[in-house]
């Protein structure tokens, strides 16, 4: 499964209160309230577990977490530096 599909699955199962939610790849996860301030900590935990990466606090900014596409790009960039 592609990273972006894994991410959608993770958000649906572990983050969102709506377990059947469909998330568009460019949908604003923050603006729509799918990710709130506590959910982002859970998402960081998911990313670290799923991909063995270390998400630094200074990387928790909108550019990296606004949409599925931006999270996907962020994870790929972290994996490329491993």
């Amino acid at each position, binding site marked *: 499964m592609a990273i972006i599909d894994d991410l959608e699955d993770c958000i649906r199962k572990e983050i969102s209160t709506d377990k059947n939610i469909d998330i568009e790849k460019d949908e604003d996860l923050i603006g729509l309230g799918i990710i709130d301030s506590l959910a982002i900590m859970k998402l960081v935990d998911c990313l670290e577990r799923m991909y063995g990466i270390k998400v630094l606090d200074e990387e928790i900014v909108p*550019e990296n977490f606004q949409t599925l596409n931006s999270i996907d790009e962020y994870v790929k960039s972290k994996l490329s530096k491993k």
Partner: protein
Amino acid sequence: MELEFSEEQLELKKGAVGFAQKELNEKVIQRDKDAVFSRELWRKCAEFGIQGLPFPEEFGGSGVDILTTMLAMEGLGYGCKDSGLLFAINGQMWTVQMPIFTFGSDDQKNTYLPKLCSGEMIGAHGMTEPESGSDAFSLQTSAKLDGDHYILNGTKTFSTNAPVADVFIIFANVAPQNGFMGITAFIVEKKFPGFSVGKEISKMGLKTAPMAELFLEDCKVPVANRLGREGNGVAIFDNAIEWERSCILATLLGAMERQLETCIRYANERRQFNQSIGKFQSISNKIVDMKVRLETSKLILYKVGCLKKAHGKATMDAAIAKLYLSEAWVKSCLDAIQIHGGYGYTTEFELERDLRDSVASTLYSGTSEIQRNIIARLLGL
């Protein structure tokens, strides 16, 4: 989890106990009554090295690890009866110094950390607003970029140290359309145009830790004083508050131990019905409960220390520690008063002050209700 402390660590704790007993307890009843913050005691703590404990030597600190810091704070809490002073110091260390150290530029670290470690400067934190307490990230304070400055507008409340502080970490939203991800941290000096501190807020306990509102009216903050990146505020706040939840409680451990010893001594000395009151199970059971709370609190808190030392983060365990220790502290304060009967209710016996101070612990750094919400969410509920 390794809980064997080295001789060096235990010596530091012992030194903190001795320092606090000798230097920090004079006229504490009167200072509490008058709600007086002591800059002199603040400086003494800095000279002893408290404010610099976990920060590197290049910034005027000692560079010790989190467990060693916890032990020193525990010793301080055991020796010092002025919980307000310790609360104020903890507030600065974890919500001002630690964010600057973790997220600050070299210039920011060099400008502020040495003076905060040495006691020359006092720091305060501005997150809570009149309309956003537990829902902290719904804050309304705005920051708009204007050339080489940000213009901040808003009001902060419950800012510990504010009346005496020189520098403030202020959270404001630079992009409200991004919700909580627009929140950004700034280092604001009290001399910045448009910044002012309101009158001191009177409160139930922790009276020697002054608190006030902050007003930002077209406050000009240089871009160089933005802490971290735009939108990084939530991570900065969460990082700081996790440190605070982890370490502010260590002073409570020391206070709980001191209070337990006071109660044991009193229960053995005080005689009623021709025997010491400690022989009555209604008294001894309370003391046993206090001991059990103390020991479980130690284990929970040291676990947080071990986790943070190993992994850097301990979100769930820090919330558990905050919830458990603060509520244990309130219960033990109530038990201590009950054990002392009418004397426990008097100012002279200093237990009523502990109780007033303890109630704050279930409110600051996130209320008990918020800790339960965090734990529930992390459990997947």
